[in-house]
């Protein structure tokens, strides 16, 4: 059974691995940090959040300050899908952001008894109202 954990990652409960949901690449052990199986890029935040006012004239420009914050971009080494971003203070160790209790996850899905497709959640619909 495979459990979709994020938009791009799932856990295979039999092999106990994180997998890429886009290309099926095995990322690494689900007992550990999925980031260890990904590639990382240290992105200058000005490239994503462009200055709106002239950086040569002004101290504040609508861009983050690259000496204060960086964007760590994590991608799948097989298909290049961007799995996660992390706005980080320069030098701050990346977070172990999803530490899964694997035996509990297995037991939970065993009790549910069937694999489920990811469910987006209820849609907001227009009420039809009362009519005859």
């Amino acid at each position: 059974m495979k459990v979709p954990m994020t938009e791009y990652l799932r856990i295979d409960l039999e092999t106990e691995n994180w997998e890429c949901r886009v290309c099926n690449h095995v990322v690494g052990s689900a007992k550990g940090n999925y980031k260890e199986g990904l590639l990382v890029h240290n992105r200058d935040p000005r490239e994503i959040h462009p200055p709106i006012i002239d950086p040569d004239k002004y101290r504040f420009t609508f861009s983050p300050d690259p000496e204060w914050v960086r964007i760590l971009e994590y991608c799948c080494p097989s298909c290049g899908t961007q799995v996660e971003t992390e706005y980080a203070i320069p030098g701050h160790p990346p977070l172990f952001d999803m530490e899964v209790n694997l035996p509990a996850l297995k037991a939970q899905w065993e009790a549910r008894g069937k694999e489920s497709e990811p469910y987006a959640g209820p849609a907001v619909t227009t009420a039809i109202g009362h009519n005859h």
Partner: protein
Amino acid sequence: MNQMSNARALKTPSAADMELIKKFLDDTTLFLGPDPEIMQNHDLMPRSRDEDAAITAFNDVHSIAKIRDRIQSGCDEGYEMVEQMGAAPGAKWGDVITGVYSASGDLAIASAGGVLIFSALVHHPIKFIIKNWLNDPTVGVREGDGFIHNDSRYGNVHNTDQSMILPIFHEGKLVCWVASTVHEGENGAIEPGGMPSMAESPSDEGLKMSPFKVVENYQIKRDILTFLQNSVREPKLQYEDMKVKLFACLRIKQRIEETLNTDGPEALISTLRLTMENVRAEVKRRVSEWPDMTVRTYIIQDSTLRENCVVKINCKLTKTGDRLIFDFRGSSPEFTNRATNTIVAGLKGMLAQVFLCYVWPDLPRGQAAFAPIEVITDPHSIVNCSYDAPNSQSLMSIFTGFTAGQHAVAKFLYSCPEKFTKVHAPTFNMINTFIWGGVSQHGETLGNLCADLNGMGAGAVVDRDGEHALAPIFATMADIGEQELNEEEVPFLQLVSKKMTRDAIAPGKYRGGQGYTMMVATKDSSQWGFMTTCQGAKIPPLQGLFGGYACGCYPLSKVQGVDVYDILINEPEKFRHSIEEIMNERPFDGASYTTHHMGMGFEISRRGELFMISQGAGAGYGDLLEREPANVIKDIEEGLMSSEVAERLYKVKFDSATLAINFEATAQARAEERKARIARSKPYAEFIKEWNKPKPPSHLQYFGCWGDDVSILYMGGPDVIRDADKPKPNYMQHPKDVRIAELEARLANLGALGDEKQ
């Protein structure tokens, strides 16, 4: 040594002595300050004997649902009254809540609209009244009484919010309480508007109303009212809104009495109690459906509103079985002389909003929805500050705490088959608006704010973009108000209002909802000014979700030495309608153009000077290379993004004149970008070897833990630390003193200090 020990042993008091000592201390308490027993607890009070008896006598679920709906309607009626009649701008756009509280003080049923953070915070002052005034012969609680409160150290978010609290009796017995709370604005603090960022101690924060009696026989006591009016800048508003809140409470009281007459007191008491118990049980059931996991995240505040620095809000969220524990240890130490601290109840109130507004909006509004969820913090930290620390800008810490919670919760919800909303990237979290004050064109002294703080951009969700300027994170059903109506009362205009700020984006497969530009200029008063109280001009205050990006940064821009009203009359072609054009083109000759962080202390403005800011964007969701090319073009057409930025980031190829998409070239450009990502990125193990540092960088003033070690908190530099569990003062220098020292050092280096005596 032995003699001393024996002497000490002889003096050990007996149990009877201890009782006498306790009675002596209870009878002679010199000051009834905020009670930690009340303030640290957010769970429901134990079921009382009366509640037990009522539930035994009355427990039919259909009748309970009917009575709950009736009480809910009464709360909504009271809410409408406050919103329609209240004088405070906050009342007009829904920064209000009304509710019915159990006899023990728990909020059982709240109004459906308004500011739900109050749902987790107004129970504290009621519990203070029960504990201290109910049996006090000099105070007492009687039919016809009303109590007022605003000091956040006794409950509530910040001192700008005022509550009116009424006990409800039936045949001489206290059966419940009703209360109405409004963001009133002005409160006599060091700066106008009620949320002073310049406050360096609680004594700078204006009115400090611990809960006290201000109404007897349903009449406001005029002597106390006059004292309160005399303590604030808007005395008429103080009176009007006290009356409005009182009458809203009386309307809810009327609806309760109708229920008491038709169904009896047991039905009411049972309905209030079972509503809370059932919600609490349902929350535990819903949590148990989540995966057992620990999620870690952090959000960075980039200022104290007085100076830029790095302030960490650290969050570890652990779910085990039906327990959910927010662990905020490792967050920044409290600032001894800065106003961005919060009492822990404020943080809990905002975390309750994550659930009530974004995860389980179907649950009845009340205190019970957050009651079983646990929160851990360090003592004397920015998210659990002490009595002596100022907290008038607690919004900075409760909002970034909210975002940490919202970001962490999304990672639990994705795999959970049972959902009540869609998985949601963080919504923008700063109150990017103008706070204002001075003397109006009508000669009135005013102090308040523009309702644009409610126009926060929403985070993207799992299958669609975030909505623009949708709602504040503390109230899903609030309004941004009619600026034209506001301008009848205040002496300034918003020359540009509600125009989306182009390229201030949060990209992703689904992008965040964007923020809009506000440009204000004083017109009809020579005694008027503005302030702004937000973070995020150097570091975004959000995180993106599942590969999406956060928002960018939002500074304050000023154009001074100009009267734009003269320009609009004499040379209207020079005026521009975007911050981008005005700041880059500098169209007004002789004017000064400057940028600043968003913590502008109250500043008097001259006629026609421009103050310009933008509301913020919610975070993006998913890999931006998966965004539908047609949606990228739509964003260009709607003025959200320039063609250059769209093409560079989203790798969409299109005709620059017609915006017709070349799908084949787009697919190729995106495939190449995926390859380029792989080529420029490094394997994790290799990356952290050069990235990870053992301490915070020396070029930043850094506050909070570093990495996972939450036992040590940094206090401004890599070598200034405290043990997390051992509080220490944490003073900041006045920013002007810092600047003077820098300039004096430069003068000294140049040998220009001369023979100045030191």
